[in-house]
């Protein structure tokens, strides 16, 4: 009997039976993976619910107005004679400005430090520096804040005065009132020092993954170390460094205590660019500053502030993860 030619109708179902251990492991992983998502969602919903009175009262103006006035603690819609009025814009903008200053200072330092550790320092020194950097990443932020207030601020005042004296023709270094303390510059400096360890650590990790064959290929073509780094290591690590910087940015934006100590908050005015001026905004610091004496309605306002900060940091992290995933994809191509 000759076997006949088979058609699609003869296709068999290919079954891979899952082992019990696979099933258990899978269940644990799915639980773990989805839990973090649901926790995030629950936080978001809770923030929306708690801030609902304020959002109903001010609408989008809560994010775009420039005022933080407690009054007698009740909104105008409840017949208050001295109505509370909340608009978060100077704080939200200030958060971004301070974080940006921190990035501008921290990222170049981190990249140079990471390159130094990976390619320039003798092995023993680089091991020691790596250890110190990783240790610095675990210093609590309140320590950074206190250290910033008592040690850094007096020095930073001098640096700020120098910047102002010689570079005040650049608008960002101009001031309207020469006090120089508790400026976005100082806050950014403290934050920069705080996030430098984590950005350095991630950059170092990505630089160390540069394929040896490419490094050797460059050296074999007569490259100096600097030329090799510029043409091989930096293009390879660019995406990872950006990702690490974005993680640092997320941390910088959410930081509370360190900034609270060293930044002068102005609720009703936005400091657009005068980074040496003793005036700034920061959502997290606002929450710390107002929480103790807040009435119920203002508390709703603070929850609203938390919601805005939540959205800002989530946005920064989304950008970071999309950049990181794009780099990973590129790497997969290069392995082929």
């Amino acid at each position, binding site marked *: 009997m000759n076997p006949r030619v088979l058609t699609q109708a003869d296709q068999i179902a290919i079954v891979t039976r899952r082992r019990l251990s696979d099933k258990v492991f899978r269940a644990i992983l799915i639980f773990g993976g989805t839990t973090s998502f649901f926790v995030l969602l629950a936080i978001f919903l809770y923030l929306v619910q708690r801030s609902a009175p304020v959002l109903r009262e001010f609408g989008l103006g809560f994010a775009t107005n420039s005022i933080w006035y407690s009054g007698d603690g009740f909104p105008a819609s409840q017949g208050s004679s001295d109505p509370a009025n909340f608009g978060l814009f100077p704080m939200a903008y200030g958060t971004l400005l301070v974080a940006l200053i921190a990035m501008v200072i921290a990222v170049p330092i981190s990249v140079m430090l990471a390159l130094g550790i990976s390619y320039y320092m003798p092995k023993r020194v680089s091991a020691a520096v790596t250890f110190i950097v990783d240790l610095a990443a675990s210093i609590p932020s309140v320590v950074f804040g206190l250290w910033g207030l008592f040690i850094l601020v007096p020095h930073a005042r001098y640096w700020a005065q120098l910047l102002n004296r010689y570079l005040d023709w650049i608008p960002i270094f101009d001031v309207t009132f020469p006090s120089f303390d508790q400026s976005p510059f100082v806050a950014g400096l403290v934050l920069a020092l705080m996030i430098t360890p984590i950005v350095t650590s991630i950059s170092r990790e990505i630089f160390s993954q540069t394929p040896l*064959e490419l490094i050797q*290929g460059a050296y*074999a*073509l*007569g*490259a*100096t170390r600097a030329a090799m780094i510029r*043409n091989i290591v930096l293009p*390879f690590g660019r995406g990872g460094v950006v990702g690490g910087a974005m993680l640092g940015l997320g941390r910088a934006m959410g930081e509370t205590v360190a900034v609270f100590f060293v930044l002068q908050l102005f609720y009703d005015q936005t400091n657009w660019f005068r980074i040496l001026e003793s005036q700034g905004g920061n959502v997290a610091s606002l929450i710390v500053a107002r929480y103790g004496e807040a009435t119920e309605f203002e508390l709703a306002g603070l929850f609203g502030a938390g919601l805005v900060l939540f959205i800002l940091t989530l946005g920064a992290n989304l950008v970071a993860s999309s950049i990181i995933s794009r780099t990973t994809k590129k790497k997969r191509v*290069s392995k082929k």
Partner: protein
Amino acid sequence: MSNNSPEREEVSIPAISVDRSASLGSSAQEALNDQGAPVAQHGAREMEAQNLHIWFGNNLVLEKVDLVFPANTVTALIGPSGCGKSTFIRTLNRMHELIPTAALAGKVLLDGRDIYSPDVDVTQIRLKVGMVFQKPNPFPAMSIRDNVLSGLRLAKLPAGDKESLVEECLTRAGLWTEVKDRLSEPALALSGGQQQRLCIARALAVKPEVLLMDEPCSALDPGSTLKIEDTISYLSDSITIIIVTHNMQQAARVSDYTAFFLAQYGEPGRVVEHTTTSQIFSRPKDPRTESYITGKFG
């Protein structure tokens, strides 16, 4: 056992025919010593290892290597894995010292001058002594054209006429007709064999005097291998080539001279035999060489 006995005939290798014996002496007028090995002339494009010893840490991996690579010839380095061929070749363009514990004693001469003398600029040596690696390693972030020109950029050399340099190098590497219409495509779009020829073109762009090839075909299919061998034959008119290979037929096909390396158990590697390729494959002097090239070990 005399060399003319019938048994001797049986261990000869019919699959290996030595093509290049005829060309020897026409492209270069080298002096040979009584062993058949070339004698140093200290001229341009000549490389020489003098009493070279190589260590990793306290471990002596190569002992007393004396080899001359005459100008415009191809020398094949053969031997079992772990005998120090790759280590040796990496001392010739000072890639050896990139490994932290690497050390050496003796001399390596290029154009009659010691490349390890303290006043020598290592990047200049690597420009004069190019290298092609076992695995093709084009720079993934660069296009085909930029890969060819990458040496100029890395070593900050004046570029001159870039387009004609790209064409010249790709032509010499035997790749021009295949890629001339897609020079700005990424290098990784090429096949493995094409990538390896691109790496050869990249090495040629900085105008080296010597080209080191560390098993350049071990990751390639037979067709690509033949193309690279054609390229080697073509290049050897103007450049000195030293190639590490595990493929006996390849050594026989492309090289003028062959050096057989061997590290016996517990001992550092040594050069067992170094002579013309035709001689080593037809009348090897050392029985260990004969065993190796007939496939009895290694």
